[in-house]
């Protein structure tokens, strides 16, 4: 009896799977035959941007439903944590079996481009998704090696900033966040007492440390690669830059030595729970919120710099950090995939997604929320008056340019100052425009990008970021809506 039952079950299973195969093949058949992609199913690997994988899914699903309503294309989303994402992509690239569309940390762009696993966005594909102009050019240059069609297009942008605890600053009698490293050290010493430290560092995180090595290096006039593309990680400028970073803990003693063990975003926790007064981080809002820190409790300021600037020093605050959207080269649904990319990078979607995820959108209009009168930063109320640089930034549509700071920019940076991504957006708060992705350095930084995110420890977003520096001149201050 049981045997016969088993036989029946087996037969049913075989029949069912045959039916399923028939269904799926008929689906793909109809899709390639007609011009419409309705009925196609795409697989989408999303990166973790929200407070949890489920949170990401909850944010994405309504947008995917909207996409289905518009095009008839079903998108199956899988949110993959940062600890696994690169390995999953690597396995997909090796086997040729992967999703149709996926997120990558933008620092991975060049190295993944080298594998040939992604469909290059040549002119035809770029036009199919609405053209280059829908992206901020700074972000668009963090999409692969120079001189090649982008391997991916930007979807979310981030930049490093100085997060500071307002109450602790007030208690220490500090009226404005530091603008130079010397000021930061002086403030840090005032803020270090008892169980409280001036600055929290993610000392054990390979990716955080390499991001800082790059940004600090730029401030000290050191490039990681020379003009021929040869690595020069031990140049005097780079050594001085990294020493500046390490000295916060070793010499100035404004950071807890235990931070050297941190590799799982414990520094964010320390900042959020009042164990440290300052933090250098990118897009920390969701993480801070999840640790119970209210948006009003902290302020955000540009990354300080070295003054007087070392020879050749550039005023760089961050690399162009962010997430890119790529189409898997082996996809059988290229048209549908491009439609989906077009949808996800459209202004409306960028605003919706970035509002929910507290990130910076990548379309020029997307940095502003709905209801903002002017896309180009004119007349937008920043959080002016909150501190001295905000005043310079937020006020009157001037670029985020503090006269005292610009002289650090050498002629090198004259080129390619573009419209900005921005630093941060917040519900009901101003976005402090941080500025112009200058890009163009990808040729030289390709090698840097080539090594994939070496970190393990699984920061939530440790991989994001590319090597293109972000000078703080010539940007714009945008504001998010209330």
């Amino acid at each position, binding site marked *: 009896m049981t045997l016969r039952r088993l036989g029946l079950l087996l037969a049913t299973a075989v029949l069912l799977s045959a039916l399923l195969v028939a269904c799926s093949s008929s689906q793909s058949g109809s899709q390639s035959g007609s011009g419409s992609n309705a009925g196609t199913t795409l697989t989408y690997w999303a990166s973790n941007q929200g407070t949890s994988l489920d949170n990401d899914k909850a944010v994405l699903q309504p947008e995917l439903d909207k996409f289905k309503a518009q095009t008839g294309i079903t998108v199956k989303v899988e949110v993959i944590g940062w600890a696994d994402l690169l*390995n999953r992509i*690597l396995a997909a*690239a*090796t086997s*040729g079996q992967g999703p149709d569309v996926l997120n990558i940390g933008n620092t991975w762009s060049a*190295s*993944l481009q*080298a*594998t*040939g*696993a992604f469909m290059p966005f040549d002119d035809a594909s770029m036009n199919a998704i609405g053209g280059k102009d829908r992206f901020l050019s700074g972000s668009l240059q963090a999409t692969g090696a120079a001189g090649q069609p982008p391997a991916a297009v930007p979807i979310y942008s981030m930049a490093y900033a100085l997060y500071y605890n307002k109450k602790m600053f007030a208690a220490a009698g500090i009226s404005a966040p530091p603008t130079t490293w010397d000021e930061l050290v002086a403030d840090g010493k005032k803020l270090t007492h008892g169980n409280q430290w001036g600055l929290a560092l993610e000392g*054990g995180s*390979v990716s955080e440390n390499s991001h800082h090595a790059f940004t600090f290096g730029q401030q000290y006039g050191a490039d990681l690669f020379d003009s021929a593309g040869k690595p020069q990680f031990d140049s005097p400028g780079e050594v001085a830059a990294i020493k500046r970073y390490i000295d916060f803990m070793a010499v100035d003693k404004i950071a*807890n*030595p*235990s931070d*050297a*063990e941190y*590799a799982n975003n414990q520094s964010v926790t320390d900042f959020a729970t009042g164990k440290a007064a300052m933090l250098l981080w990118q897009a920390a809002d969701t993480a801070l919120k999840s640790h119970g820190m209210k948006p009003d409790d902290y302020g955000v300021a540009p990354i300080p710099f070295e003054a007087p600037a070392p020879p050749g020093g550039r005023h760089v605050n961050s690399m162009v950090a962010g997430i890119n959207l790529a189409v898997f080269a082996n996809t059988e649904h290229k048209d549908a995939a491009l439609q989906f990319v077009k949808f996800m990078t459209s202004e409306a979607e960028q605003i919706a997604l970035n509002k929910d995820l507290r990130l910076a959108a990548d379309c020029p209009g997307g940095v502003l929320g709905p209801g903002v009168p002017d896309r180009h930063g004119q007349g937008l109320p920043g959080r002016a008056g909150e501190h001295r640089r905000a005043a310079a930034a937020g006020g009157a549509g001037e670029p985020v340019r503090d006269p005292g700071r610009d002289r650090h920019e050498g002629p090198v940076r004259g080129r390619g100052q573009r419209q900005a991504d921005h630093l941060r957006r917040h519900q009901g708060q101003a976005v402090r425009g941080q500025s112009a992705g200058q890009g163009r350095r990808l040729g030289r930084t390709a090698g840097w990008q*080539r*090594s*994939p995110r*070496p*970190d*393990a*420890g699984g920061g939530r977003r440790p991989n994001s970021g590319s090597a293109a520096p972000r000078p703080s001149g010539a940007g714009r201050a945008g504001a998010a809506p209330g």
Partner: protein
Amino acid sequence: MLLPALVLELLVHLIPMVVGVWMSLKGLTQFFIRNWSAAPFKGLGNYRVALDVHGPIGGDLLSSLRVTVAYTLASVGLSWLLGTVGAVLLQRPFRGRGLLRTLFLTPYALPAYAAIITWRFVLQRDTGMLNHVIVNDLHLAHGRPFWLIGGNSFAALVAVSVWRTWPFALLCLTAGLQTIPPDLYEAAAIDGASFGRQFRHITLPLLRPVNQVLVLVLFLWTFNDFNTPYVLFGRAAPRAADLISVHIYQSSFITWNFGLGSAMSVLLLLFLLAVTAAYLILTSLRRSHA
């Protein structure tokens, strides 16, 4: 009858090994992972890089090998010692013996990840229990030492490894002790042999076959141990605890240079084969002489 087993053996063991050796001769980097056969043939180029002890890559590999050998000797030695002492002490029946045996075996039964991540919490500088006990409660150390980075990480790694592997030694040796006839001990006791002499002249010689296998197995496991350092330190192991398995993982998966990583793996395989062969020949010779 033997054929299916042979085919499976080929599939499961030999083919991956051959593929590994083949990969080690190729310049298999991210540029070729979609089409392995397109990777350029490098001959022994990867091996030259790995063996060039004056170069940065070869030098790091050598220092990693040294750390691994020291780690293996310390961990296997201590595990064996603890296992032997434990097994002998638990040999005679007493109240609570079963309970103690179960308790001692717990680390071996715990899933590796769960057990080691707990150690990671214990060993943290600020919030770890170890520092809380030795600094705050016992005042043994001045200032909080680091255990997960810097020089102490080696001791931490050995401690966790011993904690994880000694129950296996205990288990094997307990089983081995059951095979020794009690009459021998009775006879020795009647002749007036002390506990120490009984141990040296009865227990150790009769446990020799068990020990021979046990030490070899512990050696191979410990030498190739990936879980313990990886979970304890993450991908970036401190230099003092840079074990070779994690080192090779770093050299292939993190830099996507699978050719070089394979060459290192093949070298590791050859090293282990040589050590194992030497060990088996030596121990067998001594046995046949004895």
